[in-house]
């Protein structure tokens, strides 16, 4: 049948199971917005295009589907950049559709023309400029296939305005993909699995490093079974949180710059690292020259370019985490590894007394871990999903909230993009209407995404927004305190009255200034059926401990000063 370019875009969305699009209209995408009225696609009108990309990312993480954002040419498309870069770093399947000036104007510096495929080339898994409507059906189908298969990622399709209006023959089922250079899946060999098992069976002090790839591959059961069979402790990356329940005794929890000291100590003393679906980011390894010097490394990843990129692997296995671990399981001999596990327990006990903040006693202004622990206790039985922004609160959330299930924490990991939290929560709440979606955000990141409160109201989303207001860009302030001799440079930040702001936008506003108000406020917020803006006035100059300073070894950490006195070892 004959279809216009705009219809082809929308029918592809239907065929790919996409019923939500996050976007913002403009000149070069108008034909598609016109056709939008004829299709049962729910369009979420964000207040800034960057947030369309963040919301599509949040939607994708929460739903497991492809997130779609749609904007106009020029400024609309350039505003997507941060969101696409984040989706690229965190391997999130997003399809971005951008309008482009008419094909006969391309290259003439026309009004609102930007070379968007050029701009987004390094921050997308792949991208397309469509100047001929005959190419559009194939391109659209390829875009979804590439975004979601293999190592997922963002794909951008830049569609000229005249292409959206022209017609061509369209039969979705008849389209044969032809991607001779695209190899999303590959076979893993028995020989590699056998060698990996031999490493594991002879290891005395193994640690599994569990990354986002486990969640993306839905390999949680295989991970747990492998760990339990070999009694191998698991350290997770930030995005690997939830790959195994945080109450599982073998889950050491988060590693890296703000991982607890015992986790990093275990990695540094390991004789074998089994890295699965993680990429040895510098925030995870500390100084590479001193990283896990006694350890052999097995690196399992679906992306061959990750193997031996940062840490040279003794054995690299390119493959799907679920398939590889399932293959490995019967070859791994049951062990108790009692000596290794009890050594880690000794380190853990030390951490408990030195670093973990008491979340039971807290005077005057609460500290953020206290609030996060209170949110955790209130929501732990519920179907709750936490979205964080970026900074101190993000690290405290990772340390103090205990995630039991995968995809229960959405956070901007690789890119660390402030302003991610609120728009990502919009996407997440739309993906999981029944879930209790909480955003934990600092006063800096909140103000980056402030206009999206209007989107939350327009969409009637019951998102609970907990602002941790300390009057500082906290993580930068912490670095200035610890590394730049407390020379505070542009980190003090004023915030408008959040109660008045809530009132202006029409959502419920609440404030807690004392620790003893926190629990009641959370209870009250949860009883509100609609969105709530919570203003937690928290301790101003608190630091996230422990912390690996840049360039230092993973177990050479700033520990909490004077902690012996304050600690209770909860």
């Amino acid at each position, binding site marked *: 049948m004959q279809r216009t370019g705009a219809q082809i875009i929308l029918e592809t969305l239907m065929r790919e199971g996409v019923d939500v699009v996050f976007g913002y209209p403009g000149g070069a995408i108008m034909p598609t917005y016109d056709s939008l009225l004829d299709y049962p696609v729910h369009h979420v009108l964000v207040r800034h295009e960057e947030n369309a990309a963040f919301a599509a990312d949040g939607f994708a993480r929460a739903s497991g589907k492809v997130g779609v954002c749609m904007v106009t040419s020029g400024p609309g498309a350039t505003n997507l950049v941060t969101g696409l870069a984040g989706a690229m770093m965190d391997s999130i399947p997003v399809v971005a559709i951008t309008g482009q000036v008419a094909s006969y104007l391309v290259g003439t510096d026309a009004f609102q023309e930007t070379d968007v*495929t*050029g701009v987004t*080339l*390094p921050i997308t*898994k*792949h991208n397309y*400029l469509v100047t001929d409507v005959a190419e559009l059906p194939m391109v659209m189908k390829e875009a979804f*296939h*590439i975004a979601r*298969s293999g190592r997922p990622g963002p794909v951008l399709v830049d569609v000229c305005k005249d292409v959206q209006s022209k017609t061509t023959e369209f039969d979705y089922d008849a389209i*044969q*993909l*032809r*991607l*001779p*250079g*695209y*190899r*999303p*899946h*590959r*076979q893993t*060999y*028995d020989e*590699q699995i056998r060698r990996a098992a031999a490493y594991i069976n002879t290891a005395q002090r193994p640690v599994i490093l569990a990354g986002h790839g486990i969640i993306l591959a839905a390999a949680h059961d295989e991970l747990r079974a492998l760990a339990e069979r070999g009694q191998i402790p698991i350290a997770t990356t930030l995005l690997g949180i939830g790959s195994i329940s945080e109450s599982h005794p073998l889950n050491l929890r988060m590693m890296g710059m703000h991982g607890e000291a015992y986790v990093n100590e275990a990695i540094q003393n390991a004789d074998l690292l089994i890295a699965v679906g993680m990429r040895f980011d510098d925030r995870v390894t500390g100084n590479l020259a001193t990283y896990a010097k006694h350890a052999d490394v097995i*690196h399992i990843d679906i*992306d*061959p*370019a990750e*193997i*031996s*990129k940062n840490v*040279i*692997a*003794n*054995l*690299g296995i*390119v493959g799907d985490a679920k398939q590889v671990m399932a293959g490995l399981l019967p070859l791994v001999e049951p062990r108790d590894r009692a000596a290794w596990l009890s050594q880690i327990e000794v380190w853990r006990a030390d951490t408990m007394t030195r670093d973990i903040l008491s979340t039971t006693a807290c005077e005057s202004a609460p500290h953020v871990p206290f609030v996060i622990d209170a949110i955790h206790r209130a929501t732990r039985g519920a179907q709750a999903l936490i979205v964080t922004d970026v900074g101190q609160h993000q690290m405290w959330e990772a340390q103090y909230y205990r995630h039991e299930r995968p995809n229960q924490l959405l956070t901007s990991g690789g890119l660390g993009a402030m302003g991610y939290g609120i728009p990502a929560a919009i996407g997440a709440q739309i993906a999981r209407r029944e879930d209790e979606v909480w955003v934990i955000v600092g006063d800096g990141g909140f103000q980056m995404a402030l206009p999206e409160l209007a989107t939350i109201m327009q969409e009637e989303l019951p998102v609970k927004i907990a602002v941790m207001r300390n009057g500082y860009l906290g993580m930068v302030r912490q670095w200035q305190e610890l590394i730049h001799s407390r020379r505070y440079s542009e980190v003090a930040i004023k915030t408008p009255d959040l109660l008045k702001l809530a009132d202006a936008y029409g959502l419920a506003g609440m404030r807690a200034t004392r620790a003893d108000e926190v629990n009641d406020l959370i209870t009250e917020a949860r009883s509100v059926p609609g969105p709530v803006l919570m203003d937690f006035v928290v301790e101003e100059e608190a630091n996230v401990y422990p912390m690996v300073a840049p360039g230092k070894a993973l177990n050479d950490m700033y520990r909490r000063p004077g902690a012996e006195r304050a600690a209770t070892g909860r």
Partner: protein
Amino acid sequence: MAFVDRTTQRPRAPHVLVALVENKPGVLTRVASLFRRRGFNIESLTVGHTDTPELSRMTIVVDTSKTDASLVQANLFKLVNVVDVQNVTRQPAVMRDLALIKVRIDQQTRFEIVQLMDIYRAKIVDVCPESMIIEVTGPEAKIDSVVEMLKPYGIIEMVRTGLVAMVRGSGHFTGPTPDENGNGHEHEVGSGSNGYHFDDDSRLVRSLGM
């Protein structure tokens, strides 16, 4: 980070990669952008047509004293438009560079240079009273040698194409055929192999079977 040969402890010799890429707009940009953003050091890159109109062929010489060739290969492999990548460094291959060299001449030096160029089987493709253009083809070392010989006469300008390479024998490098889902898959090379494996340093390398 400098990579040294494990046996000689000297900087590693350059590696030669051959890539088959889809003949589509922007593919060269994708490859160049990859090298730039990953900080890969490339000595030369040539691109040209193949016998198949849909495919172009690149020969890439990687400076392995600073850049790991397997990482370059794996990253190229990831690009959707790159159909196949082969490291031909350790394979018997014909490797050729072509140079055009414009050299200053006079009455005395003209015949001297012509004789000299005969030794290299180089061709004189243009001549005028003050200069001539010499065309010379061969392995890079040969071209280097010609350049050294001509320098005393005065090189006015020079251009080199960069290396092109082809593996000897009747095996052919045409890239994989797509599977039923339209995705590329590797050549069947020996039983149970996808054509790539990890060597002792755990680097992705192409299996050498034909």
